[in-house]
């Protein structure tokens, strides 16, 4: 497995675990607290956790193969990255358009902000999954 495929797995795990936990906690406490905007601390904590987990896993992966970690992406890896990025951007664009509609329809602003965050997370998951699929398929 190449270093960049490992990076995609790391992104998938880090985003899945951290924001899975974040949205589960938000869901559990939505009626009591978070609908009024008290999720900022939770959100900041999730971002910090994401950075820590992703950095730690990337460092471990780099320690096993420092040469590959320091090498620039080759043409196939760049192509895979572009294809995955395109799929992620389609996902995010569709979600943003839908959420603009939700705002205009009078949805709770905190809810829309969290749905926007969920869209960002989903687009990152789509990117990581697409990268893994392309790496597994060959291109």
């Amino acid at each position, binding site marked *: 497995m190449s270093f960049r495929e490992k990076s995609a797995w790391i992104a998938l795990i880090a985003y899945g675990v951290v924001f899975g936990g974040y949205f589960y906690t938000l869901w559990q406490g939505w009626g009591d607290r978070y609908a009024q905007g008290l999720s900022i601390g939770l959100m900041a904590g999730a971002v910090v956790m994401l950075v820590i987990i992703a950095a730690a896993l990337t460092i471990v992966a780099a320690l096993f193969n420092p040469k590959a970690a320091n090498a620039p992406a*080759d*043409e*196939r890896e760049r192509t895979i990255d572009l294809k995955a990025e395109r799929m992620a951007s389609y996902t995010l664009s569709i979600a943003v358009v839908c959420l603009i509609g939700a705002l205009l329809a009078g949805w709770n602003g905190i809810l829309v902000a969290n749905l926007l965050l969920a869209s960002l997370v989903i687009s990152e998951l789509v990117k990581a999954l697409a990268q893994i699929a392309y790496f597994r*398929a060959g*291109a």
Partner: protein
Amino acid sequence: MPIENEIRRLRFEHGEMTQAQLAERVGVTRQTIIAIEQNKYAPSLEAAFKIADAFGVPLEQVFRWAPK
């Protein structure tokens, strides 16, 4: 992929050159050489010329157009 190649045979004829050694000479990852060798990825013209150069043969002795 409608592009076939002779990389496996050429590696064999060049002293069992490893995929890692070829990757090093071409400037790509070993996984990319594997993908090219298995006809799963069509390399850029530059990478194709570098592969041919690594074996010291013309491009057409490494790759051929093989539409299904």
